[in-house]
């Protein structure tokens, strides 16, 4: 267990800058998620932490020890790869034992540890199999067991769930989180799936174009996005943005409800809405339409729980409203969030 510090790290490849000037600290035992669209530099950052790439600028400190130039083997980190990187020629047992054997542990010790790690992820009965005889979920658990068999300081995961099918991914996510809670190891998890990020992370780092856009708890990031990129990247469907001169208004689809739904006298901002399509999703309905009235006509989406009795009339202008507390304002030119009453959204909570 250790604290991980990334100090002003940049990575410049010959033709582009993959990561530019990223600083962040992962606290001891914390589960940090690096989230961003593909090509945002999150995997490069992870590979620099692992020692597979040398940062062009900046330093990486693991557990108070400068690790920028350390070989991967000397960092005491563990990593789960997207394709699990199980050694196809070895059995599950030997795969899990591999890190111990390389370090020259004695046979009895190895056996004990392997069985402990396999038990932790429920692989006891599959130890004699080869990786290709196993399902995706079992391979993923093998990779987990292998990476945890030797008490790493930092645990790195590079989209470990993206090769699983949707149903399995959900249960694997839950297992992974329970597992991390039990082991309590400092973890950095890379994903492009915001649902995974929200569900797993103690804190989320949203990255785009090699830079950090926002760092915060899932709630902070969802409720108070630091800029319009984070606002539209998080949430499905994304936050509605309505550009009004140099201020951009933002509100989440689930906060955008018919005005009649609010008790009279509550503090709401009225926005007229013209629906042109309704999508029924079981738990709720998605209303696609245009914001109109006093505001510039902009496409928007409202998400209304099925429990709200409201029958949308397609094509007509309906009074909708957003609770003023749920309304966000952004500076149009830079996209940055303007301070909300009482809460100042820092663009970089870097040293949280």
């Amino acid at each position, binding site marked *: 267990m250790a604290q991980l510090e990334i100090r002003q790290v940049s990575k410049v490849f010959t033709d582009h800058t993959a990561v530019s000037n990223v600083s962040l600290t992962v606290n001891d035992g914390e589960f940090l998620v690096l989230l961003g669209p593909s090509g945002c530099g999150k995997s490069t950052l992870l590979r620099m932490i692992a*020692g*597979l790439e040398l940062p062009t600028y900046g330093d990486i400190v693991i557990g108070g020890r400068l690790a920028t130039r350390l070989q991967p083997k000397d960092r005491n980190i563990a990593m789960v790869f997207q394709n*699990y*990187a199980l*050694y*196809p020629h070895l059995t599950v047992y030997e795969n899990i034992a591999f*890190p111990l054997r*390389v370090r020259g542990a004695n046979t009895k010790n190895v056996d004990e540890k392997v069985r402990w790690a396999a038990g932790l992820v429920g692989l006891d009965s599959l130890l004699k199999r080869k990786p*290709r005889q196993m399902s995706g979920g079992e*391979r993923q658990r093998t990779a987990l067991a292998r990476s945890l068999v030797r008490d790493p300081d930092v645990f790195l995961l590079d989209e470990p769930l993206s090769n699983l099918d949707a149903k399995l991914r959900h249960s694997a996510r839950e297992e992974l989180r329970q597992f991390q809670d039990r082991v309590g190891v400092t973890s950095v998890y890379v994903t492009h799936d915001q649902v995974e990020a929200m569900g797993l992370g103690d804190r989320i780092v949203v990255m785009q174009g090699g830079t950090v856009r926002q760092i915060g708890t899932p709630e902070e990031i969802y409720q108070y996005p630091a800029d319009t990129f984070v606002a539209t990247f998080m949430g499905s469907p994304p936050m509605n943005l309505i550009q009004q001169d140099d201020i951009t208004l933002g509100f989440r689809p689930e906060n955008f409800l018919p005005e009649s739904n609010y008790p009279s006298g509550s503090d709401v901002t009225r926005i007229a809405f013209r629906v042109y399509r309704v999508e029924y999703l079981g738990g709720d309905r998605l209303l696609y339409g245009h914001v109109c009235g006093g505001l510039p006509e902009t496409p928007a989406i409202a998400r209304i729980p099925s429990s709200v009795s409201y029958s949308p009339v397609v094509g007509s202008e309906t009074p909708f409203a957003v609770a003023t507390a749920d309304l966000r304002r952004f500076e149009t030119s830079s996209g940055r969030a303007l301070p909300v009453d009482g809460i100042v959204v820092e663009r970089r909570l870097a040293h949280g």
Partner: protein
Amino acid sequence: MTSATLSIATAPDRPRRNHELADVHHLASRMMVYLLAFTAVSVVGFPLFWMVLCSFKPGGELYATPPSFLPREWTLQNYRDLFVQTNFPTYFANSLIVAGGATVLSLVIGGLGAYSLSRFKFFGIAAFSNAALICYMLPEVLIVLPLYIYVVKLGLADTLIALIIANTAFTLPLALWFMRSYFNAIPVSLEESAMIDGCTRLQAMYKVTVPLALPGIISVGVFAFNHAWNEFLFALVFTSSERNKTLPLGLATWIGQDNIYSWGMLLAGAVLVTIPVVLFYLLVQRKLVVGLSDGGAKGE
């Protein structure tokens, strides 16, 4: 209504199979495969078979017309002559040294080189791999003279080391290209994982990459051994003394040495030359096939 249900109930258990053109194609292609295999076996196999049979015939019977298929009199005379009258054991040992040395060198240098070509990117690496391919296209005759000059200048003329080096030089381009494609097929993440698990790069290579590339390595080994074992031109040019002759050269010098061709001895020699190659192949063949089905790293 009722008659319809009845007719269904009494229908035969399995519906009639609907034959289609593809069935005929399937049958025809099976027949073709067997025919081809039979042809190949007879064309390739008969000379070998004939060689083995004839090596057991006494000298006179070899010239009999019409030729006898099975030896009328089985004899080991040819083999005895081989060991008593000639330096066959020396040739054999020399060939083993040259072929073994060239194989090991090709595998070590070729393996490390192919690994670098596959994993690293630095200045000139693409040009180098293309140059290696062009080198492979040069015929032996073309490189034998420049190599001879080197050999003489380095004082290696008439040594087995010269032969080992020359044969390695000839095999290396193919070894590089062949193994490079095998290494390319192995995901880099496996080695990265091994390095994070505590290996140095070299350890990661021989603990993970080499076992997975084993079929490719074995194919290259078989090729290098075979080539060096059968190689004639380099041996002819680089060696002169009786003590350093290899098998192909030694056997060839018996032809026309005296005016009577000692066919019986030559045939016995040829049988003995073939045996190590066959043995070597049988030894690695199982590994080759197992490796091929095992090495697929897909999804792992």
